[in-house]
Structure formats: C-alpha cells, structure tokens
C-alpha cells in the first residue's frame, strides 16, 4: 500500500476535487486503510452534525441598536465635523479618480508640518503635568486604594460625563468615539502626554446636567436633562478600576464617564486609556453612581 494521503489530499477528495484517476487512488487507499477511512468518515459525520445548528434568530433589540448606530455614524448634522462627515462628502458620489490624494496637496503638507511643530513645542510643557497625574491616579494595587482615591478625587470632578440612553457596550463606545467629538476629545486628551491637565474636560464640569453633545447624532436620543451625576460618588471609580486592572495596563487614565445601561443594569461606566499600553481603551462598569466596590465588569474598547 502506498503512503497515506495527507490531509490536503483527503480534503480535496472530500471536496470532490481531482480527476477520476486521483479519486480512484484515494478511494482504493481508503478501502484498505481503516485509519484514513476513519478520518474521512468522522469528518463527514461532523459536517452532517453541523446541520443541527439552525440560523439563530436576531436577538430582540439588535435591529434597533444597529439602526441607531448606523444612523449615528451616517447622519451627522451639518455643522459637525469628523470622520463621518468626511465620509458623507466622499460618499456623495465624487468619483475617486478626481480626488487629489492628500499627500499631493501642498496645504496638507503645510498643515502636517505645522502640527508637528506645534507638538514639538507643546509636549515638553505637558510632560510635567503628566508625571504628576500618573502618580496620582496610578498608584495601584488593592492596598494602595486609599492613596489613589485622594489622587482620583480631584480628577473625577473634571472628567466629562456622557449620557447614553439605552444599552451601552464596547461597540457603543467605539461608535461614540467615532461620532462624538466631545468623547473623542476627552479620550485624546486622556491619552495625550498632557493627560488630565487638558482643557476640554476642565471646561465640561462634572456630572450635573451634563448631556450628550449635539454631535451625538439622531441615533441616541438624549431626552431629559441628566440627573446630577454626583461627582463625589464617582471619585473612587478610577482607583477601583486601577486596582482591578492588569498591571501592564497601569496606570489608567480616565477619559470620560458614561451614564447608561449595561447589560440591562443602570450603570456608571468609566472609560480609560492606558499609560502602560498606549492605544488601549477600556470600559469599567460600576453600579450607577456607586464606585465603592470593584468594577462589575470590564471590557476592552480597543
């Protein structure tokens, strides 16, 4: 008996490939080789058993959630800027061939150079405050929670609070970051070397009455003014999240809070970036306005 056919050959055989001679060879081998015949038979059986999996029904609420997310992504109000509007302009039907790539535009080069220069000028100044803040928010581990609370206290008052009616998930936060300039600013300034010294959140004030910004789009309909978010009650959130975080991702930097529903439960959600892992974004779920215990859940946003 010749060598056993390898899995590629068996796969091809099972997929119906090969000319008559090749198939006859494999068939002859299978007829005389119980172990190969066993492999082919169990593979065929597995394929049949898959038939018990019917197409699942769409979970209740998912259709609405998708519609809202798509609407929020696509239907930006005119004054907004950001990726979605850029997309709309392009989508409005200008053929690709007529667009000048950004790197061929002198203005783009000028702008890029200006940004670089600006960054070079600003970063050294920001760096100092960043150090201060990371020590404050970042002292980690369960035992140092008290110490961290002191650091988190002042910060919590300056972290924006965003209300999202309805269910919040990592995907909601992602689409929010794509469409909501305020959320993105908060994240960018949390991730920037300047961290919490950044002005946008200082000007936002904490919780009371803070609402979704206009840029949120039609998808998330924010209705009544938010009840006071209770800045004081949010102060322990960062230390609690830090204590629960993987050591590699510490220290965490707070970007913004979300008041919303997480898996059906009224929650306060802290969104953080990570100094340890740049680019990482996590959400930390607490009972509404109550960060006194460890997070109920955490999810990576990206």
């Amino acid at each position, binding site marked *: 008996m010749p060598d056993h056919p390898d899995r590629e050959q068996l796969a091809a055989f099972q997929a119906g490939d090969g000319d008559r001679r090749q198939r006859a060879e494999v068939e002859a081998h299978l007829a005389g080789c119980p172990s190969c015949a066993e492999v082919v038979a*169990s593979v065929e059986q597995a394929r049949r058993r898959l038939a018990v999996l019917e197409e699942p029904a769409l979970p209740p609420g998912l259709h609405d959630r998708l*519609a809202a997310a798509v609407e929020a992504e696509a239907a930006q109000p005119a004054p907004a800027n950001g990726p979605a509007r850029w997309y709309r302009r392009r989508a409005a039907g200008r053929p690709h061939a007529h667009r000048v790539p950004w790197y061929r535009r002198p203005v783009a080069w000028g702008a890029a150079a200006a940004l670089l220069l600006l960054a070079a000028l600003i970063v050294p100044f920001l760096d100092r405050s960043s150090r201060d803040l990371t020590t404050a928010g970042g002292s980690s581990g369960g035992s140092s929670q008290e110490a961290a609370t002191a650091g988190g206290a002042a910060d919590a008052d300056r972290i924006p609070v965003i209300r999202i009616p309805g269910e919040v998930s990592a995907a909601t936060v992602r689409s929010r970051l794509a469409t909501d300039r305020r959320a993105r600013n908060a994240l960018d300034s949390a991730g920037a070397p300047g961290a919490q010294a950044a002005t946008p959140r200082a000007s936002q004030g904490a919780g009371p009455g803070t609402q979704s910004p206009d840029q949120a789009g039609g998808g998330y309909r924010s209705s009544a003014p938010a009840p006071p978010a209770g800045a004081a009650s949010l102060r322990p959130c960062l230390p609690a999240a830090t204590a629960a975080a*993987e050591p590699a991702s510490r220290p965490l930097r707070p970007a913004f809070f979300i008041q919303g529903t997480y898996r059906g439960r009224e929650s306060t959600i802290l969104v953080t970036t990570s100094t340890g892992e740049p680019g990482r974004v996590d959400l930390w779920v607490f009972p509404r306005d109550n960060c006194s215990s460890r997070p109920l859940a955490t999810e990576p946003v990206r």
Partner: protein
Amino acid sequence: MSDPSDEALLAAHLRGDPRAFGELVARYERRIYGLCLRILGNREDAEDATQEAFLAALRRAASFRRAAAFSTWLYRIAVNAATDQARRRGRARTAPLDPEDAGLAVASGGELGEVVASAVAVQTALAKVPEEFRVAVVLCDLYRVPYADAAQILEIPVGTVKSRVFRGRLALAECLGAPPDRPPLHVPGPPGTDTTSPASEPTDPPSRPQE
C-alpha cells in the same frame, strides 16, 4: 422581482439615498449576526461584532468594487469584525468580573433559536475548534458559501479553504467525541455495540461523553 439588488442599494446609498443602507442592514442583519455568533460563540460578542461590521461597511461603502458580490464583501468585513472582537475579548477576561453579572459569563451558547441539547453540544464543540478552521467551517458548511467565494472572503487560495474546512470538521469531530457506533479517532478497536446509525446522529440525545 422588483426588489433592487444589494449592489443597486449600495449604489443608491452612495448617491445619497438615506434609506438604502438601512435596507441592506435589514436584509443582512440576521445572517451577519448568525455568522458572528457561530464564530464567537456568545451573544454579547456577536452583537458587538455585528454592529462593528455594519459600521465598517458603512465607512467603506465607497470602496466597494463590483468585482465581488456585495454579500462576499460584507462577509469579509464581518469575519474581520468577529475575529477582531475575539482578539479583544481574549484580552478582556483577565480583570476580575462579578460572576453574578451573568451577562458577562463567557459563551453560554444558549442563544440558539431553539435550544436543542444536541445543537448546544455542536455549538460548544464548534467553539473549541481553532478559529482559523472554525471560520472556514462556519462559512462553507453553515452558510453554504462556495469554496471559491470563501477564498475571496478570507483572502486565501481555494485549496487552503478546503484544507481549513476539512481540518475544522476533523477538530469538530474530535471535540464532539466519538459517535457511539464507532471507536474514538485514532484508537484502533472493534466497533462499538451500539447500533445507532450515522443518519440519526444529529438528533441523538447528548448521551455521549462531552465536556
């Protein structure tokens, strides 16, 4: 047949028709959700991945080329969204979670339209198949995507698709355990005494060893 094609709807969307993309979502949401659910194994992740997939499709709508069918293009985006979600989720589970927050417990697999014990067993076994093979099996065996289209979706050669499907089925068979009428894989031995015929397999009660 007055319904516009998927491609026509996408073109209408790109011309500014505000309802066209929503129509595409309505056409595909169940399929994309199912695809993500079979790849990811739990509802929460599948919902997130489904949303990501449609948002990504929306962002990239202008880059759609008619060389491929819309469904092939969308499946590719969805498979990428699902595998990205799996990667993110793989990193997520290290933080302490409150187990009573049941929604977070990983992969109950209980989101099947009708919870049939054997379907749960198959879904559970499927979740143990290595992702690369699982995706191929889900596309080709569950969604009946032709091998050539799966090759486009996964951006790999057709032969590789066939090989992955084969290996995926083999891994699935191993995860499901040996059927009662034959000995376990690779362990030579006399046929079992159980006379259950293979044809009745799918509706068997889950009496065989499972983990």
